[in-house]
């Protein structure tokens, strides 16, 4: 997967896949394909989430530290 897939697009595709599987008769071969894609997308999202959380935490920590510095 290239970096070009955005988290929001990934979530959308994932939701579509899950919906499709749940509501339609898909051939077993397709199912396997779809599940593979879903598994990939989930991984992608988790990565994105993980990265974002790391970044956010770092920014928040910075902000907090600053205000703590000033407060103390």
């Amino acid at each position, binding site marked *: 997967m290239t970096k070009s897939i955005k988290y929001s697009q990934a979530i959308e595709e994932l939701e579509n896949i899950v919906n499709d599987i749940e509501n339609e008769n898909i051939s077993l071969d397709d199912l396997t394909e779809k599940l593979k894609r879903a598994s990939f997308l*989930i991984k992608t999202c988790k990565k994105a*989430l993980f990265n974002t959380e790391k970044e*956010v935490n770092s920014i928040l920590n910075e902000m907090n530290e600053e205000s703590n510095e000033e407060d103390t």
Partner: protein
Amino acid sequence: MKEDRRVFSLIEITQSLRSVIERKYNSTYWIKAEIAKLNFYPRSGHCYPEIVEKVNNKVQAQIRCTIWGSNYQKINEEFLKTVGEPLKEGTNILFRASISFHPVYGLSLNIVEVEPSFTLGEMAREKQKTINKLQEENLYEKNKKNVIALLPSRIAIISVETSKGYNDFLKILNNYPRKFSIKHNLFPAILQGEKAVETVTAQLREINKQSDNFDAIAIIRGGGGDIGLNCYDSYQMAKEVATSPLPVITGIGHSTNETVVEMIAWENKITPTDVAYFIIQKFEDFYSRLEKCKKSLIFNSEKYVNNEKNTIKHLWGIISAHTSNKIQYQQYHITNIYKNIKNKSLELIKHQKTSLSNIAEKILQSPVKQIYGRQSELILYNKLINSLTKKQIKIEKDKVNILKNRTEQLNPEKVLERGYSITLCNNKRITSTDSVKPGDTIKTILHKGKMTSIIKTK
């Protein structure tokens, strides 16, 4: 001369009369009558009054009486003592007498006793009659209504030159220390007894004729005791006194009851001395009025001038005091104004300083407060962003996890793991035996491995 005629001698007759009368009237009798004539003989001391009874002034009965000298003195004294008058003509008396007949002197009453109180009553009746008559004729108060001159300096005197009263009167006037101009003319008259009424009345008439020359009439009598005063009760004299245009002053001088003339006189002073003093008093009154005026003039003129002096002093005192006060007050006022201006100006500056420093203080405090407010605002934003961001990440995480779970449940591998298998016929998943018939070849997918079978029965 006839034979059968019986002739008596006078003596026989008179003796017979005498014996009849003495036999018939052998007692004494109380009789009332008026004395017509007294017929008193001082030498012998006997008295032979003629007594009468009158009706409408006409004699209806008359008889001669005898009062023997030995009785007369006693009777007359007693009478005088009680009545204030001696027995005299015109007096009504009540007496006790025996009746006697004397061959020579004829019939007479022998008076042995006289009742004086009867006469007294008769006189009082007469006096009351005079008073009543005067009152009926509106004369009773008439003389009193005259106004006496302020200075009665011309006095008409009715008196007798020889009377003690007149002399007393003159003595008082002449010996009085202040020689007031009091002039007096004597009009002589009899002042008591029967003739008094006539003479006094005549002189009153004479004086009234020339009333312009006199200021007052004085009837003066004195030294005659209390006897013979009932002439002053006579209507005739009283009327003349009452109608006189001049004020009549009486000084008749006695101690018994007031006579009618005294009652109606302008002034009754009783004694001639009092009359003199009364007249002098008028002059004295006038004199003392003058003296009072003089004294008052002397005292009050000086007082007036002195009062005015004090008034002026007082006015000047007020003016000068107020002037000085006013200047002092103005000085004080200006000093006050100065003090006020000073205090108020300094107060104004002080007040301005205070309000300026109040403003400064507010300015000093406000920005710091504002900065604190802003700082806490920023901290609030910081915290909000922190928590909201974390919350959003958590939500996303949850979302992904849910999707992962759902995906995993859809994966058949999980079912196969627990011993289930998938049956395919013609590469299609079958869920019912209806879609196969015996003899069909079916493919079974297990958790591990696949197998192909042929259906024997159904």
